[in-house]
């Protein structure tokens, strides 16, 4: 059934990011990019969400928080790492408190490049995540 690709609800969490990617993720919801036309709604609640947008290279303290949010999300769920920091640790990869990209904590399905990833790049990431969501839903049912 294709209804998954028509109503992807996202939850966004900032795991030690410089909040450049966070305000770009929020900018996706605002009038100029408006991802609600694709059915995307930013629920702040892991129990309602399908796509997990993580920004920032994961530091020690947000490590358990991310795993906690990931486990609270109902199946099928997809993780999108937004920005260079989330994908590979980016410019902070040598810092002592940072444990590299998000994939060192939870499995990541889509990586979005860019330092302060542009809203268009984030929309590309979400669109690719839809395909992964459909695949997981078929595998589950």
């Amino acid at each position, binding site marked *: 059934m294709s209804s998954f690709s028509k109503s992807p609800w996202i*939850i966004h*969490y*900032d*795991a*030690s*990011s*410089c*909040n*450049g*990617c*966070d*305000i*770009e993720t*929020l*900018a996706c919801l*605002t*009038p*100029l990019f408006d991802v609600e036309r694709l059915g995307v709604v*930013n*629920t*702040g*609640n*892991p129990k309602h969400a399908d796509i997990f947008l993580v920004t*920032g*290279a994961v*530091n020690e*303290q*947000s490590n358990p*928080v991310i795993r906690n*949010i990931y486990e609270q999300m109902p199946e099928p769920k997809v993780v999108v790492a937004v920005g260079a920091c989330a994908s590979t640790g980016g*410019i*902070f990869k*040598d*810092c*002592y*408190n*940072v444990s590299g990209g998000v994939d060192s904590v939870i499995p990541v399905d889509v990586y979005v490049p860019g*330092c*302060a990833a*542009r809203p268009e790049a984030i929309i590309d990431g979400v669109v690719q995540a839809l395909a992964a969501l459909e695949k997981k839903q078929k595998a589950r049912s």
Partner: protein
Amino acid sequence: MARTVIPFGPQHPVLPEPIHLDLVVEDERVLEARPSIGFIHRGLEKLVEKKDYIEFTYIAERICGICSFIHGQTYCQAIEAIMNIAVPPRALYLRTVWGELSRIHSHLLWLGLMADAVGFESLFMHSWRVREQVLDIIEATTGGRVIFGSCKIGGVRRDIDAAGISDMLRKLETIEQEIRRITKVFINDSSIKSRLCGVGVLSREEAYDLGCVGPTLRGSGVAQDMRQLGYAAFADLQVEPITRTEGDSYSRCAVRCDELLQSIDLIRKAMSKIPAGEIEIKVTGNPSGEVTMRTEQPRGEVVYCVKANGTRNLQRFRVRTPTFANLPAVLKVLQGCELADVPVLVLTIDPCISCTER
């Protein structure tokens, strides 16, 4: 009465950035707020010992995404002060203009977040729509939307030609009208007033004793604005700090709305007086010495302490950011407030957690 502890958690829809508050709540009145921060501490000050001092401007800019340009500008000014490099005046003017543009987009961003926390989604959308027009100007002149990357030691990396300046001023016209309309709604709307007036009152002495800075301090009547120090091109542009006296969330919001219009005037004044000439100067050798540099970020005064020992890497780099100074005020104000006011109070100092925890 039963006391419940509500985790106003690191992950919360109203907070763009993670801060954890354990709210001890009786009925719906908050008795005590126990914060725990550190969710964004990356430890980037330690990178100074590994990275080349010229290369570190890229990291200094990424301390915080919203006020990224002024971080970069302050770092470059600190290094230039140590090596006493004479930056060409045109570069100083360009830095001032980009600094004011980043103040406008940061205040508009905050206006949207505050409207969203108060449950007014349409105002959030409208203020972020206007902010996109400011970001278009920034992208046209510096190439980056949020992280400009146009400041470097010894000057700036890009110039704005005459056509760029006239195009910018024309766009500023439309932006100013939109800002006037939005701030008029924000100031006069009585449903917003009922949520902001009298909430989180900080008297003049309290604000000063708690060490608040920026709009949080100016909202309580203390006229303290770092732009009066005359760094960059502010020596030629007289900056009159905007203050209010009531000291509640409403007056802090009014201060920020007026600062939006003040920044637009500053850009126009700077653009009219911008001198021609070089935009950068060759930098050689290594810095050695120590300096403290203070500038005005959208959230308040940032203090940079940089210590260099003559090698390619700096010895010590310390930043005291405005939100770090404003956090004690939030904790004091959260005592005895209502649960519905918690997001308003957390957002009233315009927290930038990634600044605070570096």
